[in-house]
């Protein structure tokens, strides 16, 4: 029993799983909906609405045995038809209007074998598909309800099979849920959950301090406020490595950074360990490739370039870069942490004679215009965090020629590597190739890897058993409050 209040930074606007990509949808959605599979805080893939599954046809068909006796919150039974409806919808007309569809295009069709058995027929094997089924667009939705009430109604009155039932939603303010006593995984211990949308980090922390919010979800809490929460006897900080990585990528096409020696020099000029230690207050870990240690494809053997200003200067001299050369660092204007990090980077670069200026952009302009159009400065911030924790998701988008996020680099070898691992279902072989990619990228110094930041949860001590999920999707079934 009891009520938990959670602060979430953004209102996704719609609770329909296929409408959005926002992680803040998932924080809530994971408690309303279930996927066929489930991935808990330990990132192990376990059965969800499917009790088991088998791969067939060399990975081109997956057969799911569904859990029986499960009903949606509105009483509608969960069965194979619901699964088919869900994916038909996702891949059909309705899904075409939204962004989720692209993640699941590997699915060719869904075939109902019997009421509790369903086959996903794939166009090609997709090694990450089972993970993707654990969240977002693959959440199973009630067919009758949607057909009867219509899509617009479903958007703001979601019904799923999850541990909590939807109660009410006030746009821009919050959403309220109540316990689903009939949950197939056992009734949740809480009776009510309220999510409040609080954009402003300081405000969320103030609410936490004032005791009006029990949990502040990442990525809200600014590093600077972590000590404030730690100092509060009623509060605690739960911090675990998350999927988010930050790097300053280089313009490898023009300017001084077209020269790999210069790129290496710039990386060596910056004491990333010191930045992680001081500005990020240890709430992050240094990275050598553009992925965190939880990522599939992470190679602990790959070490970051050492901090070596002397060496950097030597390299710069070798490359013919005169002191006073300038670089521009493009960052997201509203990213307070990166704001400081970039200033620190600029200061370090200044120490080796490279003058750095920082240009803050409105986030969406940077992401949708400046980077894709290749209009960045010599360096630009890239923040990335795939909830699937698979390096492929990052690497392909970052390094494959012609990808939106890769405006500069064209490397046939790298392209081949990236493509090759996609078709492989052999886990070990895939991992080997992914590591190879990471090494190749590090060799070419395509980016200055910075850090893998932690997911920081601010939690009131009255909350017990809170699972700080690294993917920001804590399932609240076991949580209790005093």
């Amino acid at each position: 029993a009891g009520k938990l209040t959670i602060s979430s930074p953004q209102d996704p606007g719609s609770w329909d799983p296929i409408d959005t990509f926002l992680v803040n949808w998932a924080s809530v959605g994971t408690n309303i909906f279930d996927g066929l599979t489930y991935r808990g805080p330990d990132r192990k893939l376990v059965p969800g609405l499917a009790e088991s599954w088998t791969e067939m046809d060399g990975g081109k068909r997956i057969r799911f045995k569904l859990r029986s006796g499960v009903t949606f919150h509105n009483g509608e039974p969960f069965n194979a038809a619901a699964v088919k409806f869900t994916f038909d919808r996702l891949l059909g007309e309705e899904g075409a209007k939204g962004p989720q569809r692209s993640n699941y295009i590997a699915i060719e069709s869904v075939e109902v074998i019997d009421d509790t058995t369903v086959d996903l027929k794939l166009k090609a094997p997709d090694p990450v598909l089972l993970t993707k089924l654990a969240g977002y667009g693959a959440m199973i939705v009630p067919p009758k309800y949607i057909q009867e009430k219509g899509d617009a109604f479903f958007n703001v009155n979601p019904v799923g099979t999850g541990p909590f039932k939807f109660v009410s939603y006030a746009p821009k303010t919050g959403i309220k849920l109540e316990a689903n006593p009939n949950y197939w995984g056992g009734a949740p211990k809480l009776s009510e959950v309220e999510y409040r949308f609080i954009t402003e980090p300081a405000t969320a922390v103030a609410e936490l301090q004032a005791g009006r919010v029990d949990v502040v979800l990442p990525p809200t809490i600014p590093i600077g406020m972590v000590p404030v929460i730690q100092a509060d006897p009623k509060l605690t900080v739960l911090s675990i490595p998350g999927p988010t990585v930050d790097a300053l990528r280089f313009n490898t096409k023009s300017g001084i950074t077209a020269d790999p020696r210069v790129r290496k020099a710039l990386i060596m000029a910056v004491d990333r360990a010191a930045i992680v230690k001081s500005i990020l207050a240890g709430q992050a870990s240094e990275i050598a490739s553009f992925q965190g240690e939880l990522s599939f494809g992470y190679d602990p053997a790959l070490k970051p370039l050492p901090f070596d200003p002397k060496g950097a200067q030597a390299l710069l001299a070798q490359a013919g870069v005169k002191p006073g050369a300038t670089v521009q660092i493009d960052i997201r204007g509203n990213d307070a942490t990166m704001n400081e990090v970039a200033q620190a980077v600029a200061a370090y670069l200044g120490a080796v004679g490279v003058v750095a200026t920082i240009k803050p952009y409105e986030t969406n302009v940077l992401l949708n215009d400046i980077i894709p159009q290749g209009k960045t400065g010599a360096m630009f911030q890239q923040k990335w965090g795939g909830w699937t924790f698979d390096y492929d998701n990052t690497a392909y988008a970052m390094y494959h020629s012609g990808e939106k996020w890769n405006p500069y680099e064209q490397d046939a070898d790298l392209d081949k590597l990236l493509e090759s691992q996609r078709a492989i279902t052999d886990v070990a072989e895939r991992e080997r190739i992914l590591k190879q990619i990471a090494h190749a990228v590090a060799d070419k110094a395509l980016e200055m890897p910075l850090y893998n930041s932690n997911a920081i949860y601010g939690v009131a001590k009255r909350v017990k058993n809170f699972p700080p999920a690294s993917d920001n999707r804590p399932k609240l079934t076991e949580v209790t409050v005093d």
Partner: protein
Amino acid sequence: MAAALSFLRSPRFRNLEFLLGASLTLVICLAVLFSDQLFPGGADKMDLMARLSPPFRTAAHPLGTDPLGRDVLARVVAGGKISLLVGFVSVAGAAVIGVLMGLISGYYRGICDIVVMRFADVQLALPFILLAITFIAIVGGSLTNTIILLIVSQWVQYARLVRGSVLALREREFILSARAIGVKDWRIIVQHLLPNLIGPVIVLLTLNVANNILLESSLTFLGLGIDPTIPSWGGMLASGRTYLQVAWWVSVFPGLAILLTVLGLNLLGDWLRDSLDPTGRTSR
């Protein structure tokens, strides 16, 4: 205490006002102008090991350090450059355009008036912040763009103020008598209208300098600011906000700097308005 109070009451306070305003403004301007000499390389010198050290402890960092271990005092002094630049240039630009528009629309009435006033209506219906995000999103955040934005969004204030004064003045007998003599319109505008309506404009000017320094900080607060390596009061204030509970000095000192500047400028502005008026009758 009583003596001090009676001194405040005396008419000499007006001179005190000037002294105070002028010396404050002068000190601030000089400090800001010579910040490079005062703190050679100081504003940017980073020391991550000494981050967030509190004020009044060491001579090296009398006002403490910021999250990157930079000297707050040096940054406050250097930060004045951008803040004052933004404040003054934007205000000057807006005032020049606005006064001109106001004069034309108020004096000639007719179609000029209609056009300018409808512009003003539209401008007033466009909330500043929305204008700001859209504008910055399109053209990007930079010093020049911030200034242009402020000018675009503020000239209307001056235009309205001036137009109102012109409408009142143009029926006054000394304007009529200039017209009766056959003085050309532009001379009437420049020699008679302008000097007589400049008082309130100066007051608005000095108030807006403060306002614009603050707006710059609001823009930074909303993530629409300029290069954060260039220190500015507004930027420091906005970025120091998350540290209020652990390191108040990061945002309090730039705030104080703004306060002193605003005080100095307004005292000076009020005095200037009064001294520009030979009759000495304007209400203070």
